[in-house]
């Protein structure tokens, strides 16, 4: 796995500037400053790079939305909030190659005309934040951050900012509210951050992995990046794999890689039991059955055809020891806990879903519960300030669709038919 992002992730002491430089860190800057910012945006458009934070929005296009004539400062904000269950890929980059992120921030800031970048770390990432601060200090001392970078007349400050524990702060507008010193409440869009974001100024929010792909694109060109992946899903993507899998971990693969070979060759398959279900893109995306996922390739279009999303690339492998109702109840608990509470359908819908799923799992469900859950999902989807509510609506619909008989069995038998195989009993076996 020697590609775009993880090339140097196994190098000892890579977070030290001297080591990083030996391995080519900051080599893209000469090329960067030799070109106009708008040409860099064009190059990123050509590359076909799409946002790796979850929504998959084309990065070059997003950058081109930034108005350059408002007289206001422009901000780059890097989203290092990584809190979606199943997702631990940004952390991998932050721990192993922080200079790659800094190099990407310099390129992205230069392209959009920003002179101040903030990196928003989830509060729990204390060590990662500390490491990044250290890397920034070294880069600053070497003239890579600050005034007149490398004598090229471009100024950039980079500041690391810590959140304090709230999943919703990963949503970009909530993140901005939080960065401004308020509660992490999402805001109604439009206005989009590119027009009116941080401190009411034009702002680009990008995920860590997205920004880390930029130095490669500057160095090798958009066309060079397109050597990896498919026509519509270019480049490489990180997948963080967890659950019932032999070799959990973070893997970089070209988009378009068949799931089946990825799962076998990189992940070593399941722990021995038959595969039941896979969530390919973090807890918020629709679940797939083993049959569905085995014919899928890992790219944006194939995911859509299969009825799911690549999301963050947080892949959760579930074997046949798991009860679908208990799994969904567990997911619902997370969303009920993390709703920011601003919108009634989300606040009430996540809470009710959890209650209903808990009673179904306990064998105390009512006949109408399945249709009630689907109704709640319909009510949550698309009717709220942010897409957090959809992030539970999608799992509800898909788990019921894929494993409906299991839900019905709970009602009929008035107990969990997999008692022997529930999450609780696996751990004691």
């Amino acid at each position, binding site marked *: 796995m020697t590609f775009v992002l993880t090339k140097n992730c196994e190098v000892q002491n890579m977070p030290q500037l001297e080591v990083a430089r030996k391995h080519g860190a900051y080599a893209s800057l000469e090329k960067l400053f030799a070109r106009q910012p708008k040409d860099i945006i064009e190059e990123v458009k050509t590359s076909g790079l799409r946002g790796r934070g979850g929504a998959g929005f084309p990065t070059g296009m997003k950058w081109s939305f930034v108005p350059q004539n408002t007289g206001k400062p422009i901000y780059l904000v890097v989203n290092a909030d990584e809190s979606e269950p199943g997702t*631990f890929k940004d952390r991998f980059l932050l721990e192993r190659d922080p200079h790659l992120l800094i190099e990407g921030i310099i390129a992205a800031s230069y392209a959009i005309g920003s002179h101040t970048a903030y990196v928003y770390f989830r509060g729990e990432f204390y060590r990662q934040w500390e490491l990044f601060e250290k890397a920034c200090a070294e880069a600053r001392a070497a003239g890579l951050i600050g005034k007149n970078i490398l004598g090229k007349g471009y100024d950039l400050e980079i500041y690391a900012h810590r959140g304090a*524990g709230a*999943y919703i702060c990963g949503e970009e507008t909530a993140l901005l509210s939080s960065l401004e010193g308020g509660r992490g409440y999402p805001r109604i869009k439009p206005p989009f951050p590119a027009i009116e974001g941080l401190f009411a100024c034009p702002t680009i929010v990008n995920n860590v992995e997205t920004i880390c792909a930029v130095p490669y694109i500057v160095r090798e060109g958009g066309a060079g990046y397109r050597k990896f992946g498919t026509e519509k899903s270019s480049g490489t993507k990180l997948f963080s794999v*967890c659950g019932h899998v032999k070799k959990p971990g973070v893997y970089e693969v070209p988009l378009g890689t068949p799931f089946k070979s990825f799962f076998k060759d990189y992940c070593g398959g399941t722990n021995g039991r038959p595969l039941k279900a896979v969530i390919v893109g973090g*807890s918020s995306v629709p679940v797939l059955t083993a049959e569905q996922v085995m014919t899928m390739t890992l790219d944006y279009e194939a995911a859509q055809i299969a009825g799911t999303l690549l999301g963050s690339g947080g892949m*959760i492998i579930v074997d046949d020891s798991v009860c679908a109702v208990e799994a969904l109840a567990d997911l619902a608990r997370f969303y009920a806990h993390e709703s920011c509470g601003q919108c009634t359908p989300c606040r009430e819908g996540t809470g009710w879903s959890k209650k209903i799923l808990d009673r179904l799992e306990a064998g105390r469900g009512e006949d109408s519960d399945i249709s009630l859950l689907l109704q709640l999902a319909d009510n949550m989807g698309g009717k709220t300030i942010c897409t957090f509510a959809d992030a539970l609506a999608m799992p509800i619909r898909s788990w019921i669709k894929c494993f409906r008989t299991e839900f019905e069995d709970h009602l009929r038998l008035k107990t969990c038919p997999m008692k022997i195989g529930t999450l609780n009993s696996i751990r004691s076996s």
Partner: protein
Amino acid sequence: MKFQFTKEREAKLPNIFAKYPTKRAAMLPILWLVQEQEGWISEEAMQVVAAKLELAPGAVQEVVSFYTMFNRKPLGQHHIQVCNNFCCRLRGADWLVDYVKQKTGCKVGETSSDGRFHLSTVECLASCGTAPMMQINNDYYENLTPEKVDKILKDLT
């Protein structure tokens, strides 16, 4: 009790303010400074922070109460946070919660009688591939087994 920043921390404030165009944006960094010093954030401290940010105390209170990592009461010396999210549970997190309870004598949400430990359960800490896991103060402990937990708890001062 009156709250006051130590000299060292007071000296950090101008640097923090210099990072942002508004005073209010320094809220989270300054609250972190309070918690680093005291272990929690008292009403008195919130008033001091509000004065520094030129805000009403209520504006600071609403922020402190929104974020789960800000402690509004003193916790034990070591804050143990066990992840019990879906992904950790797939890899056996349930025994971990029970085990840590038994070892520390704390129930979830409580501080041990000697004040050494406070136990919480938390949602996903981005460590799903190395589950079961817990965070103690600023550090992650991953791929846990009962033997590892014994050693980790013993080594805490």
